[in-house]
């Protein structure tokens, strides 16, 4: 299956792209997707960073199971306001 990953802020800079389509195994979790992305983009491994996860614009936990065509975003510490 295929998911769409969007990168923002420091992760966008580290990945060098703001969006990527990624093929992953059926039933993969957010954590598994993150491990695969770190292989594609080694710089995504920011020491000490605490991420949150969103699928289709809702916060999910790291063990959330992905579906085909999901939009996945790894959210670095937010700093709006």
């Amino acid at each position, binding site marked *: 299956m295929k998911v769409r990953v969007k990168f923002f802020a420091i992760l966008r800079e580290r990945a060098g792209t703001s969006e990527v389509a990624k093929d992953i195994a059926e039933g993969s979790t957010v954590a598994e997707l993150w491990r695969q992305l770190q292989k594609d983009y080694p710089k995504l491994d920011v020491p000490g960073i605490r991420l949150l996860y*969103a699928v289709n614009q809702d916060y999910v936990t790291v063990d959330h199971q992905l579906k085909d065509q999901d939009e996945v975003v790894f959210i670095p510490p937010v700093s709006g306001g």
Partner: protein
Amino acid sequence: MFQVTNQPIELDKLVRFVIDPEAGAVATFIGTTRNNNEGRKVIALDYEGYAEMAEKELRRIGEDAKTKWPIFRMAITHRLGPVQIGEASVIIAVSSAHRDAAFAACRFAIEEIKKTVPIWKKEVFEGGEVWIGTQTGQRLNPS
């Protein structure tokens, strides 16, 4: 009215949106960019957002506030892109029958924005830039 925008935010627009004939109070909060942070001389702030989700989270904050306090309407606009010193990065307006609810809901909204809304600010300061919250910025001119 919950939105992100690349344009300067107009306070009047938000206040007009929340004013209600039954309201005796409108509280507003304006977050502005400061020219210093942790001893650094700040030149500008650059906001980036996951716009669709940010607006969804802002709406969620409005709904949560309504369950906590008897407010009539809330409006929040957060700016994205470069924001110069002294300009507004976020404005919140809330109306209620009496002042306590409006003040409390306004305070709640800004605290929640800082915790859950997917917006990030990059601080451009004299000598470098840093993504606030991530603590992994790079100095462009190491001294």
